């Protein structure tokens, strides 16, 4: 199924004009929107025709969640991750996951130094700001799980020592659909730690032609430069956290999550962590739209990327071809939205 069809969000693209949008006393979120637009424009100059995917990626990035990009090879997953990393003056590492990758290859290892007769910890690639875990489902579940603590609590326990990660820590994992050869499905606990999972899908015809033209001589990825500092991203994150959300919409989020648990086709529904991720991502979207509060549209926009990958269907539904996305999109239609 084409990706664009799956990501069909019924969003009324309201162009909010300033006079009716902002309370007079609160202009600082304006800055938030500018930072977002800068990063977004930078990435879009590399990846053509993926504006919405970039919006989702940045929503996860700003809300402090991690992203799992799932698609067939060659759709630009790695390019997008690298474009984001290059747009920010932040530390960036990349790990290519292979079947023989070990947890120490990610977390780091203590090596005995012959000269001073001590163990020295050599930090692994996880000690960075943006970590690209490429083809994460090619590694064994043991190695995949090495990321659990880092992604969940932004800390790593090595040799009995607790090591804090940087306050800006963002994992972009890419994976091929699990039906492909040589892949290990991610454990449920790992899945739940990704705030969002979404696909890029094939781009439109004219966009694909544009990609060919641009990469004729050089790669646009080489041309882009960092446009936002790490501090600005931290400001953007704190602005997003201040976005107001009404009790009624929190209740709506919880009703959506609970509806996945009560669904007869679902073995294991969305967790409270999912509700939390949904709220934070909606706040990030409101920041991007230069709004000081969350609207129901924001919640509906990211409900499928936030909820769908956490559902475990029962075998009967799996075999009858029901997908997690259709279940969430049905739930979105059934659960009464405040208006």
């Amino acid at each position, binding site marked *: 199924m084409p990706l664009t069809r799956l990501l069909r969000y019924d969003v*009324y693209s309201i162009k909010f004009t300033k006079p009716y949008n902002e309370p007079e006393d609160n202009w600082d979120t304006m800055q938030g929107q500018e930072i977002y637009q800068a990063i977004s424009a930078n990435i879009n100059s590399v990846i053509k025709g993926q504006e919405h995917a970039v919006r989702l990626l940045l929503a996860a990035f700003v809300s402090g969640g991690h992203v799992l990009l799932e698609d067939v090879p060659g759709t630009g997953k790695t390019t997008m991750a690298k474009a984001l990393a290059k747009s920010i003056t932040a530390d960036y590492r990349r790990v290519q996951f292979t079947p023989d990758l070990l947890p120490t290859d990610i977390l780091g290892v203590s090596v005995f130094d012959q000269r001073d007769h001590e163990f020295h910890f050599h930090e692994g690639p996880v000690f960075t700001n943006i970590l690209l875990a490429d083809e994460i489902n090619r590694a064994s579940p043991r190695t995949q799980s090495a990321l659990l603590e880092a992604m969940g609590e932004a800390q790593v326990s090595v040799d009995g020592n607790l090591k804090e990660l940087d306050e800006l820590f963002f994992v972009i994992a890419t994976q091929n659909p699990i039906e492909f050869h040589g892949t290990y499905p991610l454990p449920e606990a790992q899945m739940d730690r990704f705030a969002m999972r979404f696909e890029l899908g094939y781009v439109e015809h004219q966009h694909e032609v544009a990609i060919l033209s641009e990469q004729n001589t050089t790669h646009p990825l080489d041309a882009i430069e960092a446009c936002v500092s790490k501090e600005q991203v931290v400001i953007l994150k704190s602005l997003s956290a201040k976005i107001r959300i009404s009790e009624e919409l929190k209740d709506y989020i919880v*009703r959506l999550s609970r509806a996945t648990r009560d669904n007869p086709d679902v073995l294991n529904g969305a967790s409270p962590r999912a509700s939390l991720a949904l709220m934070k991502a909606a706040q990030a979207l409101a920041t991007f739209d230069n709004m000081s509060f969350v609207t129901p*549209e924001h919640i*509906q926009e990211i409900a499928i990327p936030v909820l769908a990958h956490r559902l475990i269907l029962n075998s009967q539904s799996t075999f009858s071809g029901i997908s997690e996305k259709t279940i969430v999109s049905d739930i979105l239609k059934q659960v009464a939205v405040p208006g």
Partner: protein
Amino acid sequence: MSRGNSQLGPAPVLLIGAALLVWGWQCQKLPYAILMALLIELSPVSPWRWAITDKEFNTLSDFSGVVFFLSVVYIFSDEGARGIFVILEVLPFILFPLLLVQQYSVTGDMKLSALFVSLRKLDPALSPEAKTRTNITLPYFIICLLAASTGNQRSILFFFMVATLLIYAIFSRRSKRYSIITWLATVALALSIAFATQHGLRSLQASIEASFLGIFDQFMWRYRDPSRATTAIGSLGRLKLSDRIVLRIKTREKLLKPLYLREASYSSFGHGIWNSQQSEFTVIDPARDKVWELNPGQESTGKMHVSTYMTREESVIPVPHGTNVIENVAAIEIAKNQFGAVLMDMREGWVQYDVKYGDAIYADSAPDSNDLSIINYYRKDFEKLAAELNLYSMSDTDKIKTVQDYFHNNFTYSLNPSQRYPRGRYMAKFLFKTKRGHCEYFATATALLLRTVGIPTRYAVGYSIDEYSALEGQYIARARDAHSWTLAHLHGEWTVIDTTPSVWSGQEAENASVFEPVLDLWAWLSYSWSVWQTDDGADEEEENYLIWLLIPLLAVLAWRVYFRERIKNSKQGVQNYQQIKRFGTNSSFYRLVQFLETSYRPRQAGETLGSWLNKLKPIISSDKLRMALTLHYRYRFDPAGLSSAELSKLDLIVHELLENKDLWIRQEDPNESINTAR
């Protein structure tokens, strides 16, 4: 909701309707039955369904249960034992709401736990039966047939109607392994067996009823005929009298010796039958309201309150010897005969009256020749015995004492006449050979023996009372306490002479059932109930007590339905959606929404206002609408809210939009444009 895992499938089409019609026809409820059948059979073609939850099924089932219970109480109090048939007859009414809701529900069946409360507490993960669903149409069908059977006029037609319905019910569920011929043959065989059985059962019932009525008549509810008493003298076999309480006496005095309550006395005996041929009842005019004086002017020394069970409207009532006044009873008529029997005309069931009595027995007529006669058949035996005891030479007082001592010392009490004797010889055998028997032997023998030596005697029957029930706080007499004794005329007045060994009542009590205390408790409860119900002058309260019964039951129902749910909720800590504070629900934007919904396209449940307006884009376009929506969203979803100026701005925009619709709504065919938009 998963269909198809019902334990019971639905009944074939039209089956319930047919069963309801049979029921209505048999029980004369045809108009109701037609309506009910229509409602049920129209459900498959009805376009609407009710999305009723399992929990609501539980509540409905509980409600039906309470209604059933109330009906049982009401019908039994109204109809007595016949009530069981009435309850069966109205069962289709009571269960109809449950069936109706099931038929019109979305699921078409209900959880088994709706019917069985015990299943509701089970964990569905551990016990799969808690999840079982069932369809109640087939059980309802059976109930209809059962109900119809209570009204059937015993026609053979009913049997064939039921048979047809049953065949139809099982036809669709027959096993496909066998051919239809085999199936038909089996059904025919089953039907013939059923027909023969019900025919046989009917004859069996007739014969059992006849024999039971005989036993009943003889031992349990025998009506005391004041002119004739058939004794069991000469009968064979064990005489077992019932433990049932038939008499209750409330008196302030403590009984030091057995109290005799007489029902009747008789003067002539022959061949096992005492009778009083000259018995004449004279009606007594009440002296005042509810007061009948049997012996006007005589002084009364004692008073007691008697409750007795009357088996027919007019019956002799047990009263003490020397009864002078009967009062506090709403009798229609009271009459007495010269032998001291009191006949009361009132009603069936428990009746209560107060008796005032004196020491002397004035009511009985003076002795005449009948009280001295002995038929020749026995005369020889008694003369022989009188001679042995030297009674002829004694004074009257000594005669009686000697006779009492003789029976007391030489005879034993027994309810088991063990041997058959030639007809008429049993009295001689009792006197000279076996020397054992029951009270009728003793009383008859004493009466005849004293007559032989010139003392006029009569034979009295009634109850001997010495059992005090701590439970009831009064003296009681059971059917087995029925007794007979002798009245002897001595020094110008009648005296009670009881020669039956005094062990008799203890011996009778030994045979009592181990369940007697339980039965007594039940008897006391039902007696209290019937007394309360028929309390004289309490007719206008008849409806009131039912209300008193209804109030606690309804309270229990309310508690079940309402409070228990709340208790459960508070335990789970579930916050009700209604308790969420919803701000800005008075926004004027809803006037726009209402207008657009009624004119063009209603908003779906999962549709935000934004996406809904987006779908209306082909017909509407307005920046002002967007402004209004933005303000409305801030009013609704921004906890900071709107200032009053912004709020009035929103009102103004909405007002402008509604006033000038043609400015922002395109005047083309709206349906077409919406369809293309989709």
